[in-house]
């Protein structure tokens, strides 16, 4: 695996938390997924250093763990922005113009789907249906959900998080 261009800034506290999660799940059948999910919660992403800790502790090869991490879209090898923009591209949202909302965010921030702004402030990710099809098109910034979004609302929404 390629090393990340972003320096790893994990703390001792985070590592202690990860060890705790590993101990908690170790004896369960199928422990790896809960451990990886805990690691992503603790660090916000899955840098090589974290995967190495898991590999040592769980006695699994790094390549096996890498294969599993890259299989699931919710695990990230690179950090996401401080404000995570998620745009639902489920069918209901798509037929109601979610594609245009995504394009507008990409244009306003100058980044593409899956990328993060150079200042680390915003990242954009398209999602496959958040199950809120009644509110289509739906998007969220961090934990704030916006329903029935129009293209014109995009700058307003961004302004709230730029301050």
């Amino acid at each position, binding site marked *: 695996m390629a090393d990340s261009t972003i320096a790893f800034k994990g703390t001792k506290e985070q590592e202690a938390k990860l060890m705790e999660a590993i101990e908690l799940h170790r004896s369960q*059948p*199928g*422990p*790896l*997924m*809960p451990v*990886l*999910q805990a690691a992503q919660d603790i660090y916000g992403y899955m840098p090589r250093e974290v995967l190495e800790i898991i590999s040592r502790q769980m006695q699994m090869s790094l390549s096996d763990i890498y*294969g*599993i991490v890259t*299989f*699931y*879209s*919710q*695990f990230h090898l690179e950090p996401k922005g401080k404000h995570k923009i998620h745009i639902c*591209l*489920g*069918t*209901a949202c*798509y*037929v*109601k113009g979610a594609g245009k909302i995504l394009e507008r965010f990409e244009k306003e921030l100058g980044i593409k789907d899956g990328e993060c702004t150079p200042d680390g402030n915003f990242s954009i990710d398209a*999602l*496959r*249906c*958040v*199950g*809120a*099809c*009644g509110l*289509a098109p739906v998007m969220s910034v961090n934990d704030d959900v916006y329903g029935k979004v129009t293209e014109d609302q995009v700058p307003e929404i961004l302004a709230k998080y730029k301050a």
Partner: protein
Amino acid sequence: MIESQSGSKSTNLSDTRFYKKQRRIALRLCGIIDPEQIDEYIGYDGYEALGRALTEMKPCDVIDILKKSGLRGRGGAGFPTGLKWEFAAKAAGEQKYVCCNADEGDPGAFMDRSILEGDPHSVIEAMTIAAYAIGADQGYIYVRAEYPLAVKRLEIAIGKAKEYGLLGENIFDSGFNFNLEIRLGAGAFVCGEETALMTSIEGNRGEPRPRPPFPAVKGLFKSPTVLNNVETYANIPQIIKNGPEWFASMGTETSKGTKVFALGGNVTNVGLVEVPMGTTLREIVDEIGGGVPGGKKFKAAQTGGPSGGCIPSKHFDVPIDYEQLAAIGSMMGSGGLIVMDEDSCMVDIAKYFLGFTVEESCGKCNPCRIGTKRLCEMLEKITSGKGEDDDIEKLESLCRHIMSSSLCALGQTAPNPVISTLTFFKDEYIAHIKDKKCPAGVCKDLLSYTINEKCIGCTICAKNCPADAITGAVKTMHKIDQSKCIKCNVCFEKCKFGAIDKG
């Protein structure tokens, strides 16, 4: 007093157009009870079915009731639930498992989320009944990580059920034990496939494996396992309580009971709709859904998510059940029902779904990994105006190969959106390939914008054009320079006089 959008007034919610034709079994208590209060569920006869099963019935009696009821899997494939349980009950093995598939990945479907958030105990009760019927003592609910509220409510519900002695050791003093754990998905559509889901719970890449052996014989951790979908489980306590005849009295010859549809897209009333099997699309879209808003024309109803198809209005009076939907080239799937109006391009929709399958194909088998990618590229070629005369034939042939040789249902059904749109909307494909036009005005590369004689020269289009492609003096007809136009649609949206033509 409730006033509907059409202006009619009712004193009772069930008299409104949206609810009149609905029959709520799986959604019985959603929105009625506080899902975080187990007492409210019990107040509506909750856990009565489990009590009766454990104290009055033998495991084989429970299976008999389910078989008689005619309940079939609501996850999409429609396998008879009672039969599945019987296979698992008869399978040899000390350790058996009960799993719930709550990895609702079909875009446009959200009934499982609503049941878990609105009535989680019905699923817990049904899984405990399943465990008793097949002889399992451990269960897992595999929930998509995109549904944090559902996870939270399930955690509360499991905790409360344990506290009340409805989960854990010696339930209802019957000597029967059952424990339940939640496992989170991590964003992989293929994990909704049963063997992939189990592989994921085991802590691996969620790749499907060939069947047989079926999970009922060799499933989770190589033990006999029953896996059902959330909506299937939500029906079960009611079937045990009211009897199989009651359930079988609803529906069609081959499909009994009700089905929840997630009605969405370009339709007036959106939301979850639970209707008896055999209800027609016309009743769902026009009567319950109130039709297409804004004076637009209906084009197609999409069912079955990325595995399903687009149904045109000529099939609107077909009674919906598993067989009928398959006969018209779609499938039940988990029940997403997206209404599309004249502004949707059917080739673009097929491309949208193939884009989805390309991303979500796990990569294990070649027909799906490479085939869907090639299919998507061909659609990309057609929508960008580079289609050639024999492309339709090539599409059809590739679709057949993918369907006949993929390992799991994801690949076997992935060509469905292409096949159904080719069957019902071939003229749109031909328009893209031969005339290099997109009739719905969606595919950008095939669009050209022109100004017609309705133009009064208000200059608003020229002022808003980001490419400075529009010229013309005030109060004279404007003109678009095609070499500069970037087809951004701004002029079309800004013009108040209908003076911009696109096509």
